[in-house]
C-alpha cells in the first residue's frame, strides 16, 4: 500500500519541523495514544487506539524517527501489531517553505496483513489519509505554542 499526500500548515519551516519531531507533540497528536515511551534514540514504543468511524483497533508497536535533516526532512517508520494483523511501514516526511506557511509532504509504503488488508483494502488508503490529516491538523495547533521554547534556545 502506497500513501502520498501533503498538508499545508501555518508557521515557518523551522518551527513546524520542531513540532513534527517533538515527542511531546507527537504523543499528543497520535490518534488515541495511550502510551508513548522512549526506548532509544528517536525510538518510542506506543499503544494507539486508532481507526475510522466504527472500525477501530488497538495498535502496539514502535515508532522510529531517523535521517533527521532539520528543517527539511526525516523518515518515520512504524512497525507493530494490531488485532488480527501486522503492520509495517516507512514514510518520508519533507517540509517545503510556502510563503509564510509550510507544506508538509509525506510519502510512504506499507504492508498490512490480516482481515483489514484482505477485506478493508478499498477503505484503507483513504482511511490512512484521513487519520494523517487529523494528525497534521492537531500538530498544526501546537506549532504556535512552542514559540517560547525556540526563542529561549535562540537567546
Amino acid at each position, binding site marked *: 500500500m502506497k500513501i502520498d499526500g501533503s498538508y499545508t500548515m501555518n508557521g515557518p519551516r523551522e518551527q513546524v519541523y520542531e513540532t513534527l519531531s517533538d515527542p511531546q507533540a507527537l504523543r499528543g497528536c497520535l490518534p488515541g495514544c495511550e502510551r508513548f515511551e522512549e526506548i532509544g534514540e528517536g525510538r518510542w514504543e506506543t499503544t494507539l487506539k486508532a481507526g*475510522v*468511524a*466504527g*472500525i477501530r483497533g488497538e495498535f502496539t508497536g514502535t515508532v522510529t524517527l531517523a535521517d533527521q535533516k532539520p528543517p527539511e526532512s526525516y523518515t518515520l517508520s512504524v512497525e507493530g501489531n494490531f*488485532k488480527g494483523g501486522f503492520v509495517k511501514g516507512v514514510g518520508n516526511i519533507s517540509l517545503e517553505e510556502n510563503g509564510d506557511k509550510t507544506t508538509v509532504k509525506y510519502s510512504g509504503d506499507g504492508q498490512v496483513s490480516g482481515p483489514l488488508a484482505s*477485506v*478493508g483494502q*478499498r*477503505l484503507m488508503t483513504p*482511511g490512512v489519509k484521513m487519520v494523517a490529516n487529523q494528525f497534521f491538523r492537531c500538530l498544526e495547533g501546537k506549532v504556535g505554542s512552542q514559540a517560547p521554547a525556540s526563542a529561549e534556545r535562540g537567546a
Partner: protein
Amino acid sequence: MIPGEFEYYAPTSVQEAVSLLQQHGEDAKVLAGGHSLIPLLKLRLASPPVLVDIGRIQELKGIRRQNGAVTIGALATHADIEFSEDLRGVFPLMHDTATVIGDPMVRNLGTFGGALAHADPAGDWPAVALALNATMRLTGPNGERTVAADDFFVDLLTSAVEPGEVLTAVEIPVPQGKYGTSYQKFSHPASGYAVVGVAALVQMGADGACQDCRVAITGAGPKATRATATEDALKGQQLTEELIAQAAEQAGNGMDFLGDIFASESYRAHLVKVFTKRALLGAMQAAQ
C-alpha cells in the same frame, strides 16, 4: 467469522434508543439493517461493546408523500424504495438506484438511513440524497434537528450523526414544474459497489432553459460530493448535448480521487466526467 461479545438492546421507540445511546456513550453502535455493520463485526474489524438495534422501531418505517415532499423513514429498505410506486412516480432515479445496490438479499434488509449514516465512500444513496437536496432528520438527547444533505457527509465513513443521535427520516422536496432525474453507476464487477456513481436532477423553467440542476458524485473520493462547477455551467442555459458534454468536463474539479488496485485515480477522474454526462443527459431527457 464469529463476532466478539456485545450487549444487545432492542428498543421499541426512538426515545428509548436515544437514552440507551446516551447511557452507553462511545461504547454503543446503532444497528439498523446490519448489512455494513454485521460483516465488520464478523471480521472483528469493529467490536463495539453495545449494539442498539433500532430495527423494531415502527415509527422509523414507511415512505410517505405529503405537502410537496416525500418522507422516507430511516428504516425503509432498499427493496421498499425499489417497489414504492409513490416514489417511482416522483423520483424514477430512486427506483433505478435501488435496483443497482448489492443483490436482492442486501436490498431486502439493508436500509436507506443506515446506508446514509454509514457514509460509505462507494455507497449509492449519498449521491442521490445530495442531488435531490434531501434533509436528514435526527433525534438526540437534545431533541430533534435537521441537517441538509450538503452538510451531512463529513468525511470517509463519517456523517453528521453525533454520538447519541439516531437518523430518523429523510425528507426530499418534490420540485415544481418539469424536472428529470437519473443515476448512472459504474459498478465494481465483484462487490457491486460504485467505482463511480453520479446522480443528477435537472429542473426546466417555463422558457425551456435549465432553471436549476444538481449533480452529485459517489465512489470517486472519500465522500460523496457535488459537482458545483458543472451545475453552474448549466444553470440558466438552454441544454444541449454539446453543452452538457462541456459542463461534464468540469465534474470532479478539485476533488481528492481515490485510487486502488481496481481503478486508479486518473481512471476514476475520467469515469466521473463520462458518468456525469450520462446522468445529465438522462435527467434532461426525463425532464422533456
